[in-house]
């Protein structure tokens, strides 16, 4: 009799998932664009220190990276003192000069004066090593350096 008959079953309709692929693709594209593939496999611990007076390194191709830090867990046989890593292997302080020269040779000549050396050093490394690196850099006249740091307060993370 009643006009308002209950619908049959009264089940909740399934959620429409047709737009799920779109959402996932959107995320996918974001990560594809944001991803920078690492050039070097790090063999050291590289926990960068914090600083807030940072400047951005804008020209990525004009940067030479020198890594330093304690050998990570897989490379314990290299000792537990901070070491330098150039490209994909551990290096001695004396090898920095040849590394810089090789990097310079691979760039166009007019760009060489603009090359910057980025020091990516673990926060627990000691300054003796950094001092040696800086001395070597001075010898080959690579004077522009950048201490790569994370952005954050100095005081809060000490």
């Amino acid at each position, binding site marked *: 009799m009643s006009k308002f008959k209950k619908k049959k079953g009264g089940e909740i309709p399934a959620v429409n*998932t047709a737009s*799920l*692929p779109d959402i*996932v*693709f959107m*995320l*996918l594209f974001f*990560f*594809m664009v*944001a*991803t*920078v*593939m*690492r050039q070097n496999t790090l063999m050291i611990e590289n926990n*960068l*220190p*914090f*600083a*807030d*007076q*940072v*400047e*951005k*390194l*804008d020209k*990525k191709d004009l*940067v030479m990276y020198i890594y330093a830090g304690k050998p990570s867990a897989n490379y314990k046989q290299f000792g537990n003192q901070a070491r330098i890593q150039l490209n994909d292997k551990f290096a001695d302080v004396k090898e920095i000069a040849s590394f810089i020269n090789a990097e310079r040779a691979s760039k166009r000549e007019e760009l060489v004066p603009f090359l*910057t050396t*980025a020091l990516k*050093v*673990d*926060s*627990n*490394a*000691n*300054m*003796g090593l*950094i*001092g040696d690196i*800086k001395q070597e*850099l*001075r*010898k080959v*006249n*690579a*004077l*522009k*350096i*950048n*201490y*790569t*740091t*994370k*952005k954050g307060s*100095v*005081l809060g993370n*000490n």
Partner: protein
Amino acid sequence: MAKRAAPEVNAGSMADIAFLLLIFFLVTTTIETDSGINRKLPPMEEQTDPPVIKKKNIFTVLLNGKDELLVEDEIMELKDLRLAARSFLDNGGDGSCDFCKGARDKESSDNPTKAIISLANNRETTYKTYIAVQNELVAAYNELRNERAMALYNKTFAEMEANYNDVNWPGSKDALKKKIEQIKLDYPQKLSEVQE
């Protein structure tokens, strides 16, 4: 023969494929840090006679192997360093600096152009502390430059540099460069480093 409609491709598994790719990129992504504190090393040259500098124009910062800070022969906490460096640089002791807002203490620096900060560290100092100290000293310079720029051109120094590096900035770059140079002349960054 009757034309048969092409059967529709089942796109139900597209989401799965996209998820797979998404997870791959999620895992491999390392957002690289590409910012830091820029410094310039002094060039290698033959030892010439060092210029005579008055002791009061030098602000000595000493970092020992246990990461303790000694500033002007007094133990100091890291959080106080920025202010101490600022008041040293902005002192203007001999009155030749008309824009300095410092205490004009006769025992401290004469002029920002003469004031030198000397940072000495030990081989055993950790890098983290060294960067923290560098950061505080650079911050002292940056604050002073910002204030000077604000007073002269009603813009902070950081803003001016950002504009200078911005390709799309509409103003005159030459004029801006002159202004930046002027600020740098007023507060030159004179930071010398030694390692023991």
